[in-house]
């Protein structure tokens, strides 16, 4: 399949009428995605701000809370997400250079790492529930410690929970991309969705890069 002819077909198929050429459309789409990422940064950032301000109020409760978190599992999750970011950008690169099977493989690898992340998350959460560590009024951990640990875990579940939802949404989007890539819909002439969802996925990674030390690593 010659990228030239596919390119023109793709141009017509995917270019919307209010853009004058594909480059304008691609640049605009990317700009739109960065604007959306800015909104995500501010939304998550709000949680970080609340977390940080409450930590200033209750440092002992925060330290006590940290000790319930498993550093190893958190580290593994960090590695999973970093690797998934790598495979994602490799998928973008492959789709922009007409390498269909590499695109699909890298997207599948991204899904695998993301799935691994969610599995570890599942184990972490179920362990917590088992110990009675639940948000807010449901906090029934019997092992003592400052009562404001309940608030720490309120934040913990809110932050990792919302992050987890974003991971799941990302997985769905990447699965959709995989199907489209397998159908040969992407090429050097048009790979915008891969690039944009890649940016979203990197943001999910960025958030975890800050979540991990703030939740798991402070001693």
């Amino acid at each position, binding site marked *: 399949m010659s990228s030239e002819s596919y390119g023109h077909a793709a141009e017509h198929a995917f270019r919307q009428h209010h853009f004058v050429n594909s480059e304008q459309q691609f*640049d605009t789409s990317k700009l*739109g995605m960065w604007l959306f990422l800015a909104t*995500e940064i501010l939304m998550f950032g709000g949680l970080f701000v609340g977390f940080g301000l*409450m930590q200033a109020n209750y440092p002992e409760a925060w330290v006590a809370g940290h000790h319930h978190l498993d550093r190893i599992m958190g580290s593994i999750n960090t590695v999973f997400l970093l690797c998934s970011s790598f495979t994602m950008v490799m998928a973008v690169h492959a789709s922009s250079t007409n390498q269909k099977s590499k695109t699909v493989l890298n997207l599948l690898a991204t899904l695998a790492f993301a799935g691994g992340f969610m599995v570890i998350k599942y184990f972490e959460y179920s362990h917590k529930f088992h110990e009675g560590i639940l948000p*807010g009024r449901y906090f029934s951990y019997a092992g003592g410690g400052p009562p404001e640990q309940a608030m720490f875990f309120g934040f913990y579940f809110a932050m990792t929970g919302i992050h987890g939802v974003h991971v799941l949404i990302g997985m769905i989007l990447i699965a959709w991309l995989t199907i489209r890539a397998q159908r040969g819909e992407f090429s050097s002439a048009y790979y915008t969705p891969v690039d944009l969802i890649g940016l979203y996925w990197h943001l999910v990674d960025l958030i975890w890069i800050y979540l991990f030390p703030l939740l798991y690593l402070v001693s």
Partner: protein
Amino acid sequence: MADIVATPKSQSHGDHYDVDYLNDGSLLSWLTTVDHKKLGVMYLWSILFMFFLGGVFALLVRLELMNPGQTIMTAEQYNKAFTLHGAIMVFLVIIPSIPAALGNFALPLMLGAKDVAFPRLNLLSFWIYVTGAIIATVAMVTGGVDTGWTFYTPYSTTTDGPVALMTFAAFVLGFSSILTGVNFVATVHKLRAPGMGWFKMPLFVWGIYATAIIQVLATPVLAITLLLLIFERLFGVGVFDPKLGGDPVLFQHFFWFYSHPAVYIMILPGMAIISEVIPTMSQKVFFGYKATAFSSVAIAIVSFVVWGHHMFTSGQSQLAGAIFSFLTFLVGIPSAIKVFNWITTMYKGSISLAAPMLYALMFLILFGIGGLTGIFLGTMSVDIHLHDTYFVVAHFHYVMMGSTLIAFLAGLHFWWPKMFGRMYNERAAQIAAFFVFIGFNATFLPQFLLGSRGMPRRYYDYLPEFTFLHQVSTVGSWLLGLGFVIMAGYLFASLRKKMDAPSNPWHARTLDWQTSSPPITHNFHEIPVLKQGPYDYFKPFEPSVEGYHE
């Protein structure tokens, strides 16, 4: 930034070639349209309906306040009435009004574009708005909320009622605002016609652009605030509840970090409209174009660092209060620059007092009052006495209603012939404007007096000495309502006429007026190449759009 793409020839789709957008497609097709003009019109009807609903609550509130003690409702019902009035007006009317209804319609036309950057996202924004409106309605009819539209904790986290549902509605509506903001920033950067550099854009575009920046940066914080509020209600997390170790002032920081910039989401588009109406109706070049353009962006940026002026008496530290107070004074400066520029633009112009201009002049007066009283309230020492009194209520009605809504009306009357191809009855418009102006001042001017004499806001009952001013205010609200009824009358009547409006009834110079009234679906047969600036009234008019005729 190479955003200007010099490719004038565009594709035309045969079946839409000459049909105006109103007659293009079945009624049902409107529900899935990606045409920014149709979406703008649908937003317009939704917003006008919500305005009517919020207005009914306002009239009920004012009726209750006609006399001390119970007049027509219990205290609990009263709390719900003013909460719903506020929540509807803020989230469902004023914030979306100009950007979603008028901005959606006019922005691409003014830029010489065929649509916004992301038309499908635009459609999504609209349906998210409708979803939020439906959720809010469900919350209203399943008991209503009595927390005030500000949802302060710990009352909002502990009181009964569908608080979680109502805040979830606001959460959903926030996304409509965010996506509109994303769309508009991208549109302004990328879809300007060839020849339209940043300083050849109409000032309306600058205002909408600055607004969109705020929408993108501030609204997500509202989203997380409301989510945390819902978590607190559902799980008792305790971040904002002092009984659980939380901090209610923290909620206020979270809430006002969005809600203060939100009021600039309200006023900036209003100012943007005034910046169009005044030079057009004065047939004069805009005085201080660059200063006004920059002032829009300056207001957007400074608006993010003043939110603590809502919290002077909440338990915030004095140091923080002093910092916020000082920064609040700063935000008045770019606003003042605009007022001076508008007035100077009119000087020695050829003034037309058509309805849009009547509202623009009203804006100058009412914004003058509203803006200045904002400075009074921003002075920490003065605010200690005025906080939570009717002085605040009067101030924000002068800026939200007397300024933003009046500017919206100016824009509505300005673009009405373009949107619907018909002119409304000018005499009826003048009469309505009269009642709106008199009614508005009769309603809210007494409230400055009430507040400075100690009448607290949100109070169901009051001391007998406040009765007279309350009654003046209530009668004022009836005059105001009458003005709107007359307005609805002539506007709807105009829609039953045939389309006879000229392309350019106001002899404006911007690209939107060089399309037909109403425009064809794709706005322009070909993307125009800009030949003149937006306010070049000192030169003979040279249209940029081929085939233009008055």
